[in-house]
């Protein structure tokens, strides 16, 4: 079984394990690609699983930032196009290592964190250790990605820097590539560093912790004196095979260790803390400083005076303001970095930190920090940003050198990048390579938000351009003058509605009541006096034409006829109907009929009973009671009378009584006499029962109010006889005076009825005329006013 060496502690682990059994650091990167898969991955394509250290530096292939967890190896980044921006010393280092075999590219930013291994990784980095992108770009075309410069490899094997370790000025072993460190350190000692009020080394979002800074230190800074190129490539694998004695820490590095108490938010890194006796002081100091930083966005404001001069040279510009337009959408920060001006020295991963990348977007330094931490480290370390020394890299002197260097000699030939690296390449880089590497392209950096400071980010929406603060709207109601006037008038109207108004209708109400009282008094007197006095001032009624027909029908009935009497009137008009029907029934009684009484009204049976009991010699009759159902009930009775009205009002079977002997159908009756005050009831009996009468006549005694609607049926012949109201009864009674002795109801009511009607007619006439005159005068006055 193959073994994997833990990048944090350096101990061997099984190939099948994902995390180190000793320190818990991730052994394998999150994304690994097959070394044979070298096809470029374009945006939108499925990423190909890749190996080792080609882990994104916290940035997804499509530019989406993702947080790097503890033990995760940040992704590599291709910064080959920044080669001109690299200082010469880096290039020299690369040249030295060009002959060394590349180290096994397990993870560019191993779990030991930053290129400076903090664990007990004393073994030199393997020759085939993978170079970080920013360094791999330096030897583009010359080496494979797995090649780790010896100088980096040797540094990587150095023991981690322990916090609290007194800063030691370890003289850097003079070498061709390390002279610059010594020079930087000398310069740092000579001149005071500028105040910390300068440009912040890192934007708040990307400020790394001290331990991250410690981890961010390249391996060569701590290891170059001790070992040759380490087996594993560090994040900055400049010279993996370059062994450095551990005790030969550059003075500038040792100096940075002198202030460990500044940042205490970040706990010391595990691997670093284990065998950390060899950590330079400045690393330890930074590690201590990082403890004080917040977990999310730890910021390390390393005083400028503490950063070495060589770092200060590479310090980039201040991060752009958040209001600056965002970079092209979905362009990874790495992509945005890659198309920066060639004049800029700051590499992508450094520029990202300058532009305030989100913690999740923290490029490789942050990832390296976290990778260097053991699994038990706090979350604060997970979001570490680039170390100060990286942020302070200013493209001042280097910028001048970079173009020159780039223009002078492209020492590093472009190398064919593996697919996973190409996937990490920003789109702009690809475009720049295809078009013109030196093409100057302005990129709008993202303004604010998680992508703040990153260039090449797609705008929020195409064409909108810069993000703007939303316009603040006042919560107060904005009204124009006209609206205010309308509102005020509406308010007045509403207030007026609620105000009590004087009652002006009382006089009108009194006059109305007075008139009503007068009318009632007149009518009562007009009706009451004849009733009380019994005087008869009105002659008999007019003899209507239909009266003779009715009398003829009754006279034409055979003896002892069976007659069906329908009492379908309400108690309210019982007086009129009784008065109108009395002469007819009395005339009918002369025939000794067998009467069957039925009603479609619940009060009809009892009215019929009371009516029949008023007759002096009541005839033989059967009260069939109440017939429910309206027209359907009438039709049912017309079709089958015994089934519809089985029992009498007393509960006796009706159709077996002698009165209804031989009666089984409606046509068996000799006549049907309907007493109704309602025209609809009369119409119902005519429509439903009329078809089943055959030759039996239907005679109706109706109220005066039903006459207009029932008369057409009489005119059409559906009704054979018709007696209307009190006047009809009076006329019928007059016609039979010879038969009936005494005064009937009609005689009793006739004078009072006449007097009352007469006075009512007078009142209606006088009132109508006066009303018409008043209305005419009012209309005339209005017309005159209008004219």
């Amino acid at each position, binding site marked *: 079984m193959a073994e994997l060496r833990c990048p944090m502690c350096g101990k061997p682990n099984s190939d099948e394990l994902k995390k180190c059994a000793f320190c818990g650091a991730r052994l394998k990167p999150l994304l690994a690609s097959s070394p044979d898969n070298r096809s470029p991955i374009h945006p939108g394509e499925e990423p190909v699983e890749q190996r080792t250290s080609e882990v994104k530096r916290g940035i997804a292939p499509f530019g989406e930032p993702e947080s790097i967890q503890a033990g995760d190896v940040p992704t590599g980044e291709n910064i080959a196009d920044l080669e001109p921006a690299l200082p010469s010393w880096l290039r020299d280092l690369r040249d030295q290592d060009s002959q060394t075999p590349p180290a096994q590219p397990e993870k560019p930013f191993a779990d030991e964190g930053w290129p400076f291994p903090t664990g007990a990784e004393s073994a030199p980095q393997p020759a085939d250790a993978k170079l970080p992108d920013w360094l791999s770009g330096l030897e583009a075309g010359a080496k494979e990605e797995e090649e780790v410069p010896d100088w980096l490899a040797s540094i990587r094997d150095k023991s981690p820097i322990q916090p609290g370790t007194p800063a030691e000025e370890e003289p850097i072993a003079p070498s061709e590539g390390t002279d610059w460190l010594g020079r930087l350190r000398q310069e740092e000692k000579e001149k005071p560093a500028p105040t910390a009020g300068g440009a912040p080394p890192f934007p708040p979002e990307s400020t790394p912790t001290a331990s991250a800074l410690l981890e961010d230190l390249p391996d060569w800074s701590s290891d170059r004196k001790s070992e040759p190129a380490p087996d594993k490539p560090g994040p900055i694998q400049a010279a993996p095979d370059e062994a450095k004695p551990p005790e030969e820490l550059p003075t500038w590095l040792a100096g940075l260790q002198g202030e460990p108490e500044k940042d205490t938010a970040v706990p010391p890194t595990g691997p670093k803390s284990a065998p950390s006796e060899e950590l330079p002081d400045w690393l330890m100091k930074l590690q201590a400083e990082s403890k004080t930083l917040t977990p999310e966005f730890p910021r390390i404001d390393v005083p400028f005076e503490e950063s070495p001069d060589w770092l200060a040279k590479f310090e980039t510009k201040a991060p752009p303001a958040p209001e600056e337009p965002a970079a092209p959408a979905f362009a990874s920060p790495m992509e945005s970095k890659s198309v920066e001006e060639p004049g800029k020295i700051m590499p992508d991963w450094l520029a990202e930190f300058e532009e305030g990348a989100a913690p999740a977007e923290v490029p490789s330094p942050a990832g390296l920090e976290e990778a260097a931490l053991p699994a038990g480290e706090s979350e604060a370390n997970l979001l570490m940003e680039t170390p100060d020394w990286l942020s302070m890299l200013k493209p001042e002197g280097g910028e001048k050198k970079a173009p020159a260097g780039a223009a002078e000699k492209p020492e590093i030939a472009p190398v064919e990048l593996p697919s996973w690296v190409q996937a990490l390449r920003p789109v702009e880089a690809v475009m720049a390579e295809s078009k013109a590497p030196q093409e100057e392209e302005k990129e709008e950096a993202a303004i604010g938000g998680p992508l703040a400071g990153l260039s090449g980010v797609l705008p929020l929406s195409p064409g909108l351009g810069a993000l703007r603060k939303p316009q603040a709207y006042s919560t107060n109601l904005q009204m124009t003058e006209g609206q205010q006037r309308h509102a005020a008038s509406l308010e007045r109207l509403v207030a007026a509605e609620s105000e009590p108004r004087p009652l002006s209708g009382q006089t009108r109400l009194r006059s109305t009541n007075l008139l009503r009282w007068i*009318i009632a008094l007149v*009518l009562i007197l007009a009706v009451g006096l004849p009733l009380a006095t019994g005087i008869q001032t009105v002659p008999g009624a007019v003899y209507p034409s239909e009266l003779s027909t009715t009398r003829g029908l009754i006279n034409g009935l055979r003896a002892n006829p069976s007659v069906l009497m329908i009492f379908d009137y309400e108690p309210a008009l019982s007086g009129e109907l009784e008065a109108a029907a009395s002469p007819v029934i009395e005339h009918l009684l002369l025939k000794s009929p067998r009467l069957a009484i039925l009603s479609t009204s619940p009060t009809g049976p009892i009215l019929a009973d009371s009516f029949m009991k008023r007759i002096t010699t009541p005839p033989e009759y059967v009260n069939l009671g109440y017939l429910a159902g309206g027209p359907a*009930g009438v039709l049912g009775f017309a079709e089958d009378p015994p089934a519809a009205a089985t029992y009498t009002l007393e509960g006796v079977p009706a159709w077996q009584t002698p009165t209804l002997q031989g009666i089984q159908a409606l046509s068996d009756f000799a006549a049907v006499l309907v007493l109704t005050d309602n025209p609809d009831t009369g119409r119902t009996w005519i429509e439903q029962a009329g078809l089943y009468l055959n030759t039996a006549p239907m005679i109706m005694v109706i109220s005066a109010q039903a006459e207009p609607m029932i008369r057409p049926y009489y005119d059409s012949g559906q009704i054979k006889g018709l007696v209307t109201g009190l006047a009809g009864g009076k006329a019928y009674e007059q016609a039979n005076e010879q038969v009936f002795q005494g005064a009937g109801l009609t005689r009793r009511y006739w004078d009072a009825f006449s007097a009352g009607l007469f006075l009512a007619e007078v009142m209606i006439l006088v009132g109508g005329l006066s009303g018409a005159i008043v209305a005419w005068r009012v209309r005339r006055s209005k017309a005159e006013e209008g004219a």
Partner: protein
Amino acid sequence: MKLKGLFSAVIAIATGLVMLVGYFVELPILVNLRITILNWVIILAAVALFLGLFNLLAVHTKKIRSKEKGGIYSLILIFSLLITLIIGLWLRPDHALMALIFKTIQLPVETSLMAMLAVTLTYASIRLLRRRNNLISVIFLVTALLILLGTVPLPFVGHVPILGDLIRPFIAQVLAAAGARGILIGVALGSLTTGLRVLFGADRPYGSDPSRGEK
């Protein structure tokens, strides 16, 4: 829910078709079926009367419980209703006590209400032309006056022949009959249309009209 509406519609249409066909086809089974259906309708009409009674009780009971204004009258109503119902169910409607209740309460109240109508109608007739002074109102009022004048002879004057023998009969038996016939035909046409709509299922007044959102 749609099935329930369809079921009711099927019942209504089937019942109506049986009744209609019976008008034209004289089949014994059809006649018997019609009679049976009509008897069931009579029974259901009595049930509907009780339905109205229970609803009346519920309305006034609610009025009493909610202590609305006039709740005492509702209490009186319920009391009188229950008393009458109990006596009627116990003794039968043709009992003397029921007749007494009818004659002493229902008959005089209804008749008195109708008597008050004479005063109200007189008042309304007096103020008619003041409110609506147009040709139609004048025709209406003049017609009513002529009919009333022709109905009863005048006191102390007696008959006015032109009124009683000519004008009133002509107005009542010709002019009014013409209008009444037109109204009756129109009402019949409306009943026909409405009935056919129900029989066709286009109108469902029995609570399953989908156009009204009913189920």
